[in-house]
C-alpha cells in the first residue's frame, strides 16, 4: 500500500489563505489570553494548596464550600475531577504567604470532616496508616485477649491497608465485611474494627502545596527554558543551513506555541509544569518536520538550479508529504492514545501534545516555507543583476553524503 505518491498539490499558491488562518487562530488565542488576564496557571506557578478529594458518594460541593468558608478559607476553587463516577473533587486555595501554607492543609481536612462527617474518638480507617491501625487494634480489649501476636496484628493491618489502596477500592473501603476475605481477618478483628474505627467518607489521594516564592521562581524558569530552547535551535539550524532557515523554523515553532497556549486559554485548561514539558517537547518535535522539508529544499536547490524558488519549495513539500503525514500521523496516534487512556493527571500534557502535533505539522508547511520564500524574494529584489535563480550558499562545503 502506498499513499501520497507523486502528489502535486499546489500548497504555496494558497499561502495567503493559510497565513490568514494562522493569524485568525493566533488572534483568537491571544484575545482569550488578554480577556482572561493571562494563561490559567496551575498551582506550580501560582502557589497555593491543591487537595484532591475522593468521596464515597457524590461530593457535596455546597457543604464543602460552606465548611471551607467557615474555616477562613474563602475564595477556594472547587472543581469536579475526572469522570463523574469517580466522585472526585479538586480543591484549590490560593495563598499569599508561606506560613499560612503550613496550616492550610490541616484546615482543609478539618473543613472536609465538618462537611462530610467524622467520628472524633475513632480512627478513620480510610485514611489511617498501617502502623496507626495496628496500634488501635492492639489496644482493643477483645484483640488484646486473643492469641494474636503483635507482629501478626501488624501484618493483618498492612494487608488491610494494601487491599484498601488497590483499584477498584482506590483508597476507600465501603463496608467492613469486605475485609473478611483477607487472610487473618476473623470476626474478632471485624468487630474490633467496628469499635475502634469508622469508615471515613473521603480520602485524600493527592496534595500539592507550593509556596508563592517557589511558584514565581518556576514561572521565570519556564519562560527562560523555552526561550533558551528556541535560541539553541535557531543556532543549530543556522549552522546546518542558513540563518534565514533558522529564523523561519523558529517563527513557525513560536507560532505553534502561541496557538497552543491560546487554545489552553480558550478551553480553560490549566498550565502546569508538565504542560510546559509538553510545550518544550513540541518545540523540538515541530522542528523535525520543518527540517525534513528544508533538507529536501536544499537538495533540490543543488539538483535543479534552473527552477524558481516557489515551485521548487512546492515540489520539496510534495516529495516529503508522505513522510510528513505518516510520521505526524503515527506520533499523533500514540499521543491520542495517551490523551484517551492516560488518566486525568496527564490530561493537560496530552492535550498540549495532541494540539501541538497537528499545529506543528501544519506550520512547517504553511508558515516556515512562506517565510523562506518571502525573505528570499526580498533579498532577490536587491540583487537585480542576477536572474531569478538562487544559488545555494556554501553548497560546496557540504559533504557529498547529501540527501
Amino acid at each position, binding site marked *: 500500500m502506498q499513499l501520497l505518491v507523486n502528489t502535486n498539490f499546489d500548497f504555496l499558491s494558497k499561502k495567503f489563505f493559510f497565513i490568514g488562518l494562522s493569524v485568525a487562530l493566533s488572534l483568537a488565542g491571544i484575545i482569550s489570553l488578554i480577556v482572561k488576564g493571562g494563561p490559567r496557571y496551575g498551582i506550580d506557578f501560582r502557589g497555593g494548596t491543591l487537595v484532591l478529594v475522593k468521596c464515597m458518594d457524590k461530593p457535596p460541593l455546597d457543604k464543602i464550600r460552606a465548611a471551607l468558608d467557615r474555616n477562613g478559607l474563602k475564595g477556594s476553587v472547587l472543581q469536579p475531577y475526572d469522570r463523574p463516577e469517580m466522585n472526585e473533587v479538586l480543591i484549590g486555595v490560593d495563598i499569599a504567604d508561606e506560613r499560612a501554607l503550613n496550616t492550610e492543609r490541616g484546615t482543609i481536612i478539618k473543613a472536609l470532616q465538618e462537611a462530610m462527617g467524622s467520628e472524633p474518638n475513632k480512627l478513620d480507617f480510610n485514611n489511617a496508616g*498501617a502502623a496507626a491501625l495496628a496500634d488501635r487494634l492492639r489496644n482493643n480489649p477483645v484483640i488484646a485477649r486473643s492469641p494474636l501476636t503483635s507482629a501478626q496484628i501488624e501484618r493483618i493491618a498492612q494487608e488491610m491497608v494494601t487491599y484498601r489502596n488497590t483499584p477498584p477500592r482506590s483508597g476507600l473501603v465501603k463496608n467492613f465485611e469486605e475485609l473478611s476475605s483477607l487472610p487473618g481477618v476473623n470476626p474478632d478483628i471485624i468487630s474490633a474494627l467496628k469499635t475502634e474505627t469508622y469508615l471515613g467518607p473521603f480520602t485524600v489521594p493527592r496534595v500539592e502545596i507550593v509556596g508563592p516564592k517557589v511558584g514565581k521562581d518556576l514561572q521565570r524558569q519556564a519562560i527562560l527554558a523555552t526561550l533558551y530552547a528556541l535560541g539553541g535551535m535557531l543556532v543549530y539550524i543556522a549552522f*546546518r543551513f542558513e540563518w534565514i532557515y533558522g529564523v523561519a523554523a523558529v517563527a513557525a515553532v513560536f507560532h505553534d506555541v502561541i496557538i497552543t497556549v491560546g487554545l489552553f486559554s480558550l478551553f480553560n485548561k490549566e498550565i502546569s509544569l508538565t504542560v510546559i514539558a509538553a510545550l518544550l517537547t513540541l518545540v523540538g518535535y515541530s522542528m523535525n518536520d520543518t527540517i525534513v522539508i528544508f533538507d529536501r529544499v536544499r537538495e533540490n536547490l543543488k539538483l535543479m538550479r534552473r527552477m524558481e524558488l516557489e515551485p521548487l519549495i512546492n515540489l520539496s513539500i510534495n516529495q516529503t508529504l508522505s513522510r510528513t503525514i505518516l510520521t505526524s500521523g503515527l506520533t499523533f496516534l500514540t499521543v491520542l492514545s495517551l490523551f484517551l487512556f492516560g488518566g486525568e493527571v496527564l490530561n493537560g500534557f496530552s492535550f498540549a501534545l495532541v494540539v501541538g502535533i497537528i499545529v506543528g505539522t501544519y506550520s512547517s508547511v504553511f508558515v516556515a516555507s512562506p517565510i523562506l520564500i518571502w525573505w528570499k524574494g526580498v533579498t532577490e529584489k536587491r540583487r537585480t543583476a542576477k536572474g531569478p535563480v538562487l544559488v545555494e550558499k556554501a553548497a560546496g562545503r557540504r559533504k557529498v553524503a547529501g540527501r
Partner: protein
Amino acid sequence: MSRSLLYKAIFILVVVLGCIYGVIEVPRSKAELLSNLQKRIHLGLDLKGGSHLILQVQVQDAVRATADQVIEQLRTDLNRQNIPYTSIDRNDPQTIEQADSIEIRVRGIPSERSSDFKALIEDRFPEWLYTPIDSTSWRLNMKPAALSQLKQDTVQQSLRTIDSRINGLGLTEPTIQPYGGPDEYRILVQLPGVDDPARVKEIMQTTALLELKQVLGGPYPSVDAALASHGGVLPENSEVLRSVERGDTGQQSPESWYIVSRTPVITGRDLRNAREAQNGTNRGWETEFSLSVDAGQRFARFTEANVGNRLAIVLDHKIRSAPVIQSRIEDHGTIEGLRSQQEASDLALILRSGSLPASILVLEERTVGPSLGADSIRAGIISGLAGLAAVVIFMLVYYKRSGINAVLALFLNVVILLAALGYFGATLTLPGIAGVILTIGMAVDSNVLIFERIREELRAGKTVVAAVDAGFEKAFLTIIDTHVTTIVSSAFLFLFGTGPVRGFAVTLSIGLVANVFTAVFVSRVIFDWELSRQHQVAELSI
C-alpha cells in the same frame, strides 16, 4: 552470511541480552520476575506514592536564640566586672532576610567605663562588633563570617536532626539532603511509600524543645489571675506558661497557667535516652526519659531541695505536666497522658533525636497516595500498549514484511530504554511513561524516513540492494538532525525541571539516542540479513 554481518548480528544479540538482563535479571518464577522488575526500575513518587517536601530552615530563630544567650552572658559578665548598665535588648528579626540585621543594644554604660566595656566584648564575645550609638550606648552586630557560619551550622544540625527522626520511623529509602543555593537554607525530603504523611510532617517540624523548670506559682485559671497573685508584676527571671496537661484518659484538662522560672534546670540536651512505656496502674501511655550523669547530679540536687514543690515539664514552651516532687529523683523523668502507643513512641523518637535549632517551614509539598500511584501506573501501561498496538498494526499493513523490521527495532528500542533506566538508576515517573510512549511515536519516524526513501529509490529504478543502501545513507543525516533538535529541548527541560518533569526529559532523551542505534544500525543489519538470504534477484517486500 558475510563475516561482518555475522559480527554485527552477534553484537546486537549481546546488546539485547544485556538489556533484558538489565530489566528483569534472571528470574526463576513469575513472582521473581515481578520483584526483579521492581528492583531494577525505580518508580518515582508519583507512581509509587509518597511525599516530596522542600523545607526551609528558619535560621533567624537560631540567630535570635544566640543573641539571647549572648545577652544573658553579657549581663553576668557586666555584673561581675561591676560595669553598670541601664538595659540590654535586641531587635527581633522575623524572616530569613532579616536575620542578618540582628543587633543587640546596650544602654547606660558610663563613658569612663567604655574602654572596659570594649575590652570585655573583644575578650568574651569576639564574634561581635561594637559601634557606639552615643556616649553611653552601644550597638553590637555579629561579624559576617560568624553569622554565616552560624546559619550554615543551623542548617547542618537541622539536617542531622531531621535525618535521625526520619530514620527512626523505618521508612524505605528516604532521601534527606540539602537543596538549593547556600543562602536558601532549604532541605529536600523524599519519603517513598509513606502512608501517613501528616504524621511524618509533624514529626519533622516539631521543634521539641524540652525544658524542666521550677514552678513558682499556680495553677491559675488565666494569665491575669497569675499576674494578680503577684501584685501585677512577675518575679525576676520568670514567665507565665500555659499548661496543656492531659488527664489519664488523654483528654485535655481545662485551661490553666503557671508561673515558672525562666531558666530551665534541665534541657533536652541533657537527655541520654527516651522511650515509650505503659503506665502500670491506669494503662495510659507515657514517655520516659533518662538523663546524662552530670545532668542527673544537677537534677538530684534540685529535686532534693524542692520536695513538695512542683516541677514543670515544658515541651515547646507549653507545660505538658507539673507534678509535685515527691522525693529526690536522680536521673529520669516521665511525660504522661499520651493518647496512644504511637504518640508516646513518636515523642520518644523526637526527644532522642534532639531538638531542632530553628523552626522548619514547608515551602513545597507534593504527596501522592499509594492508590493514586497504582491508578497512574495502570493508565500509563494501558495507553502505552494501545499506542504501541496502533503503531505496530500500521507498520505491518503499510510496509508489509519490512514492517516487521521496524517493529523489531521498535521493541528493541523500548527494551534498551528500560534497561538504560535501570543501569543509570534513573527514576521512572508518570511523565516518564509518557516519554516512553512519545519515543515510540518518534522512533517510528526514523523508520518511515528510511523506508520512504527506499521506496523512492526503487521507483527511480535502482536495484534492491542499491536502493536499501541509498535509503539508509540519505536518511541518516536527516535522522541525526531531527533527533538532535528534540534532544536539545529535552536538555533544557532537564536543566530547569524538577522530579517528574526530569523523568520525562531523561526517558525521552535516552529513547531517542537508543532510536538512532536501532533504526539505523539494527534495522540495516536485519535488511542485510534478509537480502543475503536471497541468492538471485533480490526482492524486497516494502
